[in-house]
């Protein structure tokens, strides 16, 4: 069974249709890149998969391990293994990062009927992962993302991914606002999480990110649907020729 099946998805925001029949199949172990110009519907796709309010699905379906994902609340999706790394992670003043991580992890475990982590085990695990991502301990004591640089915010997303061990990671424009060094650290963190039973959907405007996170498949989106799919060489083609050809095609 496929991990994720998006079939003929049609989505509206307010009165405007953003996705006009998008299909995508992702199997465990695969890394898919979704590329496309601004306004092609890339972020809308990621939001609808994660369950963000404000989107109206007018047609099609999304199956996650064969189950109807659209029927599930966002927290249920998270507990089932769907993880969205946000393009713009929010700042939550007054909620210490460590407290947030523990609350979220235990909420997911509880929803799955697993026992909650004990505090020492949890702290040990967070420290290990944080060290591998160059996240200093004092960052974990601060409010979630409060006063974090762009790179730190993205690393905090990767930290959560490593901690929650989701089976589907959607990385929404992970490269936006990152310099090359910050990008490399975040990408290394993501690559360390690649595994035969985990899939990733990497959404990006630029080919650059795909030098660091090398995809198995590349899909080009334009005007709300996938207009071309191919291997990783498609990304290089795009870099050379641009998106204009697809905008005309769509």
């Amino acid at each position, binding site marked *: 069974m496929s991990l994720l099946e998006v079939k003929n998805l049609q989505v509206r925001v307010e009165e405007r249709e953003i996705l006009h029949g998008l299909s995508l199949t992702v199997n465990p172990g695969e890394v898919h890149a979704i590329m496309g110009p601004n306004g092609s519907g890339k972020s809308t796709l990621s939001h609808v998969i994660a369950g963000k309010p404000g989107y109206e699905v007018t047609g099609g379906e999304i199956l996650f391990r064969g189950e109807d994902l659209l029927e599930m609340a966002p927290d249920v999706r998270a507990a089932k293994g769907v993880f969205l790394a946000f393009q713009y*992670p*929010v700042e939550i003043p007054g909620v210490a990062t460590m407290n947030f991580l523990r609350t979220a992890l235990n909420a997911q475990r509880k929803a799955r009927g697993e026992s909650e982590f004990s505090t020492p085990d949890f702290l040990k695990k967070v420290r290990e992962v944080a060290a591998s991502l160059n996240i200093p301990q004092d960052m974990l004591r601060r409010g979630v993302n409060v006063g974090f640089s762009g790179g730190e915010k993205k690393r905090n997303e990767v930290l959560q991914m490593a901690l929650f061990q989701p089976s589907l990671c959607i990385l929404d424009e992970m490269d936006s606002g990152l310099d090359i060094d910050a990008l490399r650290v975040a990408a290394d963190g993501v690559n360390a999480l690649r595994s035969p039973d985990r899939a990733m959907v990497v959404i990006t405007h630029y080919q650059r990110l795909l030098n660091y996170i090398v995809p198995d498949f590349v899909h080009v989106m334009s005007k709300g649907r996938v207009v071309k799919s191919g291997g990783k060489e498609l990304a290089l083609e795009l870099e050379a020729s641009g998106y204009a050809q697809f905008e005309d095609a769509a």
Partner: protein
Amino acid sequence: MNVAVAKNETGRPLSDSFAVARDRLPGAAEARRAAFEAYERTGLPSRRIEDWKYTDLRALMREVLPLAPAPDAAALKGAAAALKLQAVRGARRLVLLDGVFAPKLSDLGELDKGLSIRTLREVLEAGDAALQAQLFSPDSVNPMVALNSAMMTDGVVIDVANGAVLKQPLQIVHVASGAVPAAMFTRSMLRLGKDAGVTLVESYIAADGARAYQLHDSLIAVIGDNSRLDHVRLVEDSREAFNISSALLTLGAHAHFNTFGMASGAGVSRYQATIAFAGEGSKVETNGVNLLNGKQHADTTLFMDHAVPNCSSREIFRAVVDDSGHSVFQGRIVVRPHAQKTDAKMMTRALLLSDDAEADNKPELEIFADDVTCGHGATTGALDESLLFYLRARGLSEKEAQALLIQAFVGEAIESIVNDDLRELAITAAQRWLEARA
């Protein structure tokens, strides 16, 4: 205003009750009579009195209940169990049960050097004229202060001598046993000498089964030169109870008053405090939180009186209101003509969790000096949708996500409490409200 009608509606039954209770009240008969007459001129305040516009006691309370009977053995037992709710490790506990000092539940042993504690009853019965004048000093223009002056039954009178800096917090715990619906009237006084320091906690709780009681409380605090008072006030009365409290605080020179108040209990509560600067170079920090759901109504009315130059005050007030709860904050700052270099700021932030929730903020600045920094601000809104989605995308249910954001919002205020144990006390009180909501 139709005074005659007002009297018929509310004044008459109480004046009978005052006549009945008068003989049970300790001392100061003349001052009590004058205070009661002042109360009778308006009776229970209605919305036609500007200061009570949002808290119409004539509509909410309708009548003042008869004076609570002296607590019996059953009341004492119920209260002893209830004390666990706001137990503070290491604090000296002073319990007022149904408005009467309860020595058996209080800790009067081994008083620190420079600390004296007496009951209001013994002080009034002793008849010290100067002390009595001070106890009746709050302004009887406010009807509920006047009523409290007329009816005050007991309380604690605490003196901290010059130079005494007490490590142990003092905790006044008001417990209602609620055997019968009744009213309690208490007044306490804290006099802090020069170069002194103390932490005062005021806790308001109810024993199991206590329901529709009325607590009328007041506090007079005098903070001497170079002294510091840390103050924490937690209202966790029963959901059917009324808590009508007043405070009059006066600061000498170079004094510091840090206060945190939170109302998460009581059906209707009003806290009206006057903070007066009497000496230069002093500083006041007030933090307040209302946590309301169901039909809870909580009103905080502060009057910051900058009567002298070079003082600063900060008021930060937060409200979290769910269901058809109603939160009121009225903040009046007066800077008198010679109070130059005053630095006074006031901020209110309300979080509304339902369509029927209401938060009223009324700032009033009256500035008669020209070289001052004064300001006020207010925000009102719902929980941030983007934060809620982020938390839900990480696995928190809607209620869990809301609770975490509310905790964060309230936590910023609780941070202002210096003492670790008291900060913990406030956090657990807020958690109790959140858990009851979930």
